[in-house]
């Protein structure tokens, strides 16, 4: 119980301070683009009604999940292959790096040529943007498997899929999780970008509409919602990570506890 309270204090203190500073600094603002926090918070419940959450948040989150899941699958699978075989890496890396450097807003039209303007396109945009941190981290994690462990597995005939499942992926998992974590917030950003094209609902669509329609306080509430969404997703992510990487955190905590 006490540990829970302590955590709560940690989670809330800094945001509370920042909000207070924002409140104080913006309170007397008359600039339309910098509305007082008071106004923003007052607008919040009017804008983000249950109805709006249902029509905008739900489709966005569904698309985000689909895109993120695709990216995670493709990133880990491709990353494992590329990380395991030097030759494959040599062949693929230039092309991947080439594609990675193309900004999503100019990439979207190209994707639209092949994937249309429906959900597929948006999911694809999210997946294509999210895949890089996962891919890169998986490649590096797979390359860094401890030599003694790799040899142990080899000597016991643990090869192929079993090796992947029991040795390579767990050993790379701390780094893969770093990538997945990165990808989560990139996914939200791309969700917004993808909804700038041919969308008729979604969080990103709404925020962009507010911005275009000069509904500035509404736009700010949208930004807050995106931040909150990111925060919520990261909490979920942490729960998953703590389960999957339990061994790792235990191992690393040996020193931390002893301090």
């Amino acid at each position, binding site marked *: 119980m006490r540990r829970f309270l302590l955590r709560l204090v940690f989670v809330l203190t800094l945001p509370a301070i920042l909000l207070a500073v924002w409140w104080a600094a913006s309170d007397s603002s008359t600039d339309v683009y910098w509305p007082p926090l008071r106004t923003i918070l007052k607008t919040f419940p009017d804008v983000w009604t249950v109805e709006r959450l249902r029509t905008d948040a739900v489709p966005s989150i569904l698309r985000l999940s689909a895109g993120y899941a695709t990216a995670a699958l493709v990133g880990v699978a491709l990353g494992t292959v590329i990380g395991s075989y030097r030759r494959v890496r040599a062949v693929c890396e230039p092309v991947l790096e080439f594609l990675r*450097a193309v900004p999503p807003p100019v990439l979207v039209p190209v994707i639209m040529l092949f994937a249309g303007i429906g959900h597929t396109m948006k999911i694809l945009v999210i997946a294509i943007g999210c895949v890089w941190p996962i891919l890169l981290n998986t490649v590096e994690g797979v*390359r860094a498997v401890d030599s003694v462990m790799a040899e142990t597995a080899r000597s016991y005939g643990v090869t192929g899929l079993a090796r992947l499942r029991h040795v390579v992926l767990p050993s790379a998992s701390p780094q893969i999780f770093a990538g997945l974590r990165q990808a989560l917030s990139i996914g939200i950003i791309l969700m917004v970008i993808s909804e700038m094209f041919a969308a008729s609902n979604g969080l990103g669509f709404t925020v962009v509409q507010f911005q275009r329609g000069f509904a500035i306080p509404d736009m700010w509430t949208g930004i807050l919602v995106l931040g909150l969404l990111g925060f919520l997703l990261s909490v979920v992510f942490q729960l998953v990570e703590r389960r999957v990487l339990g061994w790792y955190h235990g191992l690393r905590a040996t020193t931390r506890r002893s301090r």
Partner: protein
Amino acid sequence: MKGLNLALGAAGLAAFLLLGEAVPRLGLVKDAYFPPTSRIAGALGDELADSAFWTALGDTLTGWAVGLAVAACAGVVAGVVISVVPYLREATASTIEFLRPIPSVALIPLAVLLYGTELRSVLLLVVYASFWQILIQTLYGVQDVDPVAEETARSYGLGTWARIRYVLWPTALPYVMTGLRLAAAVALILTITAELVIGAPGLGARIAVAQTSQAVPDMYALIVVTGVLGLLINVGARSVERRALAWHQSVRGEVAV
């Protein structure tokens, strides 16, 4: 060894370009919207002959380099400080997670409001986006320190600073390197996107002009330029990495006979 890798990489790229040529030629998409590689190459040639293109390239690279440098320094320092100072990680976690996913596109009005279409507003977006990449990787990297190595350092009386320098930093370095490569690409993407949307001078602004002008091959030529930039940046990052991480499993495994 190195030559072979280079050849393989070139082969991969060539295959990709061939695909780009084949897809429109086979009629899978109309070449008016997705011009074949050869036509893009022609447009690229025209671009390269234009001095305005080189100015734009210079602008973009300046924005990229400055933004990345600022983000990298800030990200690494913040990452190490947050991990080393007790309780700081717990205290900042929620704020970081809140701020990180705020899309840079939503910050565009803010950037323009503050700095107009100058370089600084591009920088604001670039730094904001790439900072998180490095920060998160650094946080994960520092966490990866081997407990025995850490205890060794402590038992020999290495102070905080020495521990950071000799133990934490080398352990985190592979992660930071990955973060840097991620951030380099993100910084490039954001530089171009910001130029594209805000209109600050640079490649992005040129892409915007090509887009609104329906000059499709020119647009693709410029996209190719950004891709090639990304490629070159990666080659640079890789060679730095090979030198800095000669001891690391991922690098040493490739040298061993």
